[in-house]
């Protein structure tokens, strides 16, 4: 997917002013955070599970080549085929080739963030295939021609009214002409439309929440059952997954599953957890004839080798964005690429470059809420700060900020001059503010006031001045 992250500032301001979006965001606010908190409370061993998950992920990442080979061998043993895609472009090409070779016309898709990342839909549509998203949220944004704004609730930015309009506009061709207003009606109508697509589809593409190395199994979690229908009804099943999705054993996958839904939606488990292991066997009654796995690197092995390795532990639960006050204020689209919120603010610059996405690691107050809830304990604020360090070293940030910081560092390491400067500043500001006690504007400090706030004035004397005087008096 093409990045719009360079325009983060404009996009975030636009999002703050978008009243419909704000209605949708406010409705979603707290929902997941409250549900997660309840789920965690109900599982005393949650923190121990997190430690176990970190150990599983770290071990796998340290031996990633080994486990990927084991996984690939197992898939081939089961009669499937593994394709290695080093870039997004490779991944798109491979998927298109498989669909062409299968003589496909219609392709159904389960929700897949890596699919969004590499731009599978665009490539397939460009090659003349009809592609239908089957996850309700993904289906909605496909109708709206928009990217997802959240990694587990892709259409969280849409209001019920907007969705009703989209269905009304797009479903008339199926003879469904009534304008709906209730959620169950809309879900039923989408289900009705999608059902025929499942049956018509030649190829089904899903992502993977986990790939199990010992058995060559891919695991997906859904709440709608669309994943099952996508991977078992069409003739060909393609799994697209990042290389970091592999775990050694089924036991490991279940440990992570216990954390995933609780962290994401506050469910103990999602409604469906689907395991798929290769094509239909001789005595199976159904299943795909062909089973392909496209393993996507696209920058992940670079991440593995540098200081961002911990990011590869991410299991895409979305807890970080559900607890991020910046995400809560502006929504996911402002971030400008596939992955929004804290995890996206680490991944995006690593994928599309710091020059393009330098705003993302900076647009964070380092409040730490994301790291507190991350099921695999990724130190997101530290990683964001590391990106800021990289940006500083590459001299990509704002020049006036660099100058200001350099001046401040000089001041702070010259205490006598610092003392004098702060005394003058405190006295001057207090005098200028006068009887009001605060400023409503000030030259060179426009940023502060742009946030719709005044600036309290200092009391007048610095603490150091008061203290020095007091010590003298005490001495007398």
């Amino acid at each position, binding site marked *: 997917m093409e990045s719009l992250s360079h325009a983060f*500032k404009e996009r*975030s301001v636009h999002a*703050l002013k978008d009243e419909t979006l704000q209605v949708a965001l406010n409705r979603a606010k707290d929902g997941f955070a409250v549900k997660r908190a309840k789920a965690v409370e109900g599982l005393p061993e949650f923190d121990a599970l997190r430690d176990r998950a970190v150990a599983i992920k770290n071990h796998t990442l340290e031996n990633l080549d080994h486990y990927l080979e084991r996984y690939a061998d197992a898939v081939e043993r089961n009669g499937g085929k593994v394709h290695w895609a080093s870039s997004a472009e490779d991944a798109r090409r491979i998927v298109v080739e498989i669909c062409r070779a299968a003589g496909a016309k219609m392709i159904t898709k389960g929700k897949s963030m890596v699919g969004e990342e590499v731009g599978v839909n665009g490539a397939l549509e460009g090659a003349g295939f009809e592609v239908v998203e089957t996850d309700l949220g993904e289906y909605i944004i496909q109708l709206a021609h928009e990217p997802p704004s959240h990694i587990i609730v892709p259409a969280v930015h849409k209001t019920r009214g907007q969705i009703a309009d989209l269905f009304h506009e797009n479903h008339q061709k199926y003879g469904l002409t009534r304008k709906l207003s209730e959620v169950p009606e809309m879900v039923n109508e989408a289900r009705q439309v999608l059902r025929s697509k499942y049956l018509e589809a030649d190829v089904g593409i899903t992502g993977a929440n986990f790939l199990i190395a010992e058995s060559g199994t891919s695991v997906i979690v859904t709440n709608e059952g669309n994943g099952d229908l996508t991977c078992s009804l069409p003739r060909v099943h393609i799994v697209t997954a990042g290389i970091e999705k592999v775990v050694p054993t089924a036991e490991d996958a279940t440990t992570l599953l216990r954390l995933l839904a609780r962290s994401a939606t506050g469910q103990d488990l999602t409604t469906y957890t689907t395991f798929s292991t290769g094509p239909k066997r001789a005595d199976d009654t159904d299943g795909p004839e062909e089973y392909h796995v496209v393993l996507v690197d696209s920058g992940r092995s670079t991440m593995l080798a540098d200081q961002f390795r911990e990011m590869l532990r991410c299991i895409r639960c979305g807890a970080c964005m559900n607890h991020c*006050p*910046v995400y809560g*204020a*502006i929504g996911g689209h402002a971030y400008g690429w596939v992955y929004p919120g804290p995890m996206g603010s680490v991944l995006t610059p690593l994928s599309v470059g710091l020059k393009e996405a330098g705003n993302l690691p*900076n*647009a*964070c*107050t*380092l*409040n*730490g*809420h994301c*790291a507190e809830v991350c099921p695999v304990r990724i130190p997101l604020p530290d990683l964001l*700060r590391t990106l800021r*360090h*990289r940006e*500083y*070293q590459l001299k990509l*940030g704002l020049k006036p*900020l660099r100058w200001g*910081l350099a001046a*401040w*560092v000089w*001041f*702070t*390491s010259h*205490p006598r001059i*610092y*003392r004098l400067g*702060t005394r003058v500043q*405190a006295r001057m500001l207090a005098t200028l503010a006068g*009887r*009001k*006690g*605060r400023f409503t504007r000030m030259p060179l400090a426009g*940023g*502060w*006031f*742009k*946030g*719709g*706030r*005044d*600036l*309290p*004035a*200092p*009391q*007048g*004397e*610095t*603490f*150091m*001045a*008061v*203290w*020095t005087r007091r010590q003298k008096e005490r001495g007398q």
Partner: protein
Amino acid sequence: MSATGSETTTDRPIEHPRVGLFVTCLADIYRPNVGLAAVALLEKVGCSVEVPQTQTCCGQPSYNNGDLAGAARTARNTIEAFEDFDYVVVPSGSCAGMLHDYPRLFESEPGWQQRARAMAGKTHELISFLTDVRGLDAVDASFARAVTYHDSCHGLRALGIKEQPRRLLASVGGLELRELNDSEICCGFGGTFCVKYPEISGRMVADKADAIAATGAKVVLGGDLGCLLNIAGRLGREGGGVSVYHVAEVLAGMADVPGLGDPPGSGGRSR
């Protein structure tokens, strides 16, 4: 107590420890009363308080903007000023957290890293120092107002400060604490974040102000001046007559001055 703060604080507590007060640049410039309140509280728990004249800033602006070499330069100044004390006490969870992070700045300088680690081990945020290290569980102060409390993020998450200020506030005569909905959600200050992304920051602090208004309390307390300046700035703009104090001012019985951003001589706008 922080994970790194165990060296000097276990076993035998020092009877009259020498405490170096790191007043923080914001308290120094904006709110000397916070420094005076900190001194008063520390003396009440038997500390001998000193204020090194060479202290400046904790280095967070550089650290959080990616200038690690600059942050290290500022940190050296702080270490030199404070490493000889029994304890370093800071009336800010954010700045205390920064001092705890100093060892990270000296990955390639073992000598300095050792000194940074030693100092981090005896550095504490003020309120948690009073309760967790000095065993204080009540203060001799009164403040007959309904107040609400904002948990600043760094104190809360990096240092585990949540119950300590509430425990002490419960002993303040006449004070009624009304808990703030979303008290653990960031106010939108975030250091330079608030001027780099003022619109987002402004929305966050407006949400905070709404939550404060919903409590009906006319006083907001907190443990970090950065957040408090932000919150006071927003409340001042809204003109709702809510005053903002650092929690230490109330605990020391020194909240008899105007709140942050209230007119001088008003004794608080909200009487």
